[in-house]
């Protein structure tokens, strides 16, 4: 009796593991199918083609496209310019974003909830529109410029920086600060408020609480938000097109103009591969940091 039930159990177990293995294999095939049918044509094939075109010359492998892209006197300093703009605007946006998030969370003013909500609506606000609205505000004929001119009785409108590096940085700071605010708010929300109370009751002043308690605890979320801000700022295009297309040659603009104005796809591909390498390394860093924080701040 007992031996019968044991063998039955074993048979059942074997059948069960076989079914499980079959299901596992089916799921595996399903994933391969998705990889080939969905992601293949959408992501993998285009990027591979880009890479191939950038290194293919008339006679096989060639790096002519790279020397053409970076040897062009107009685009020689292009990586430096792009990185300079990136560091200036992303650093400012991150500092501003963290400060704003701290203000919204720890000292909410009337309407802070509304502002938080509004920041979420920035999804529907394309970046080129931010650049565009700045023309009305800070352009040489814009409100602020004319206001300053009237205020100080100046001969000419005082502001004339918008169509260039200054305007690009201003627009990127305005547009990308909200992307730091949200992950930072999320990581503040996970703080244990008792620790802050404890620090205060033990006599720590505001600065000490901020730098010795809040910052170390919320650091992973802030770091993820900052890296995200750098990534998005590097990948920005609309702001550069509206405010920087005339005087400022940056990597995305150089790629775009070699592809669509000069119709030189291999040269554009060479620039694009370099930019892709920069973006993907930042992105890999972001995924690492974000995974370490459990991904809860990853939005």
């Amino acid at each position, binding site marked *: 009796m007992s031996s019968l039930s044991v063998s039955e159990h074993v048979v059942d177990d074997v059948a069960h593991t076989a079914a499980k293995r079959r299901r596992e294999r089916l799921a*595996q095939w399903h994933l391969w199918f998705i990889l080939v049918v969905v992601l293949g044509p959408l992501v993998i094939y285009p990027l591979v083609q880009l890479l191939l075109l950038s290194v293919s010359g008339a006679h096989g492998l060639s790096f002519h496209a790279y020397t053409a892209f970076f040897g062009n006197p107009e685009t020689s300093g292009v990586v430096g310019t792009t990185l300079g703009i990136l560091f200036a605007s992303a650093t400012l946006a991150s500092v501003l974003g963290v400060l704003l998030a701290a203000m919204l969370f720890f000292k909410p003013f009337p309407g802070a909830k509304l502002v938080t909500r509004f920041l979420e609506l920035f999804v529907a606000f394309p970046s080129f529109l931010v650049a*565009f609205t700045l023309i009305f505000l800070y352009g040489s004929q814009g409100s602020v410029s004319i206001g300053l001119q009237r205020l100080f009785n100046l001969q000419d409108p005082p502001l004339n920086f918008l169509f260039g590096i200054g305007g690009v940085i201003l627009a990127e700071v305005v547009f990308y600060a909200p992307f730091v605010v949200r992950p930072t708010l999320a990581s503040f929300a996970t703080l244990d408020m008792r620790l802050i109370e404890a620090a205060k009751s033990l006599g720590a002043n505001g600065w000490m609480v901020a730098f010795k308690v809040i910052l170390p605890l919320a650091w992973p979320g802030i770091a993820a938000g900052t890296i*995200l801000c750098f990534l998005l700022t590097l990948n920005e295009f609309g702001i550069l097109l509206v405010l920087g297309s005339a005087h400022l040659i940056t990597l995305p603009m150089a790629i775009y103009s070699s592809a669509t104005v000069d119709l030189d796809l291999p040269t554009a591909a060479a620039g694009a591969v370099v930019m892709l390498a920069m973006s993907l390394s930042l992105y890999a860093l972001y995924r690492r940091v974000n995974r370490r924080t459990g991904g809860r701040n990853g*939005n």
Partner: protein
Amino acid sequence: MATEFTLPATASKPHSLKRIGAWVLMGFAALLCFWLFVLPVIVVALSSVASHWSGTIFPDGFSMRWFERLGSSDFDALTTSLEVGFGVAVLGTVLGLWLALALEGRDRNGVGAWVDTIAMMPNGVPSVVLGLSVLIAYHKKPLDISGSAAIVVLVQLALVLPFCYRCAAAALRPELTILREAAASLGAPPSMVLSRVVLPQLVPAIRASLALGFALSLGELGATLTVYPPGFATVPIVVVGQVNRGYYLPASALSLILLAVSLAALLLIAAKVPRRRIA
């Protein structure tokens, strides 16, 4: 007694100073938020109904003439944007859901990790680079779709897919897995589990994914500008073209319509505005 009364009085002086400081700081923060984030929206709205706005602090006068003067090319762009946006939102949501369901509950190794990484990759790829890649891959044989709207849909789909996938994946919580297993163990066939248990649970995520896909598609510029064939310009392309030629006020009118449409879609489809998810 007297000492007891003087004590709080001396203590309250720095306190009230501190409070004034806090108020000033708060006012500054509120002003900064308004200035940085609310003002741009107001400016677009204000400039689209301005009869003239250059060299003055406020618009000279108000009129609806920029809306009345929107030509057929503007409306063509609007139609293209809406059609492409609709297609991208629906396709992105379906594909995102499929990906999330296929990857659900899988530990991050083997093919699953690759699928996850590659599906999320467009988040880290500059839009111009992705646009250029798609143009290179599909502008000549064996597959040439560079003359049709399909290439615009394809490139935007790749850009939107990570967001839709994240939306669906975030909604597939462990509780839902338990429900599915319960339904399956009670004898429900997989199709029934999907239609009666999983999809109803995912309705909020699907709505969020549709709204997000639509809004992102409407505002997409870099990749679309690189690949779009003649006759398929979307609203952002037309707006940027007008801005670069100095036609600011007509561009405002068109952008305001774009903003209104995408806001309406966000509010209509998703009661709660979804967050822009990445990674």
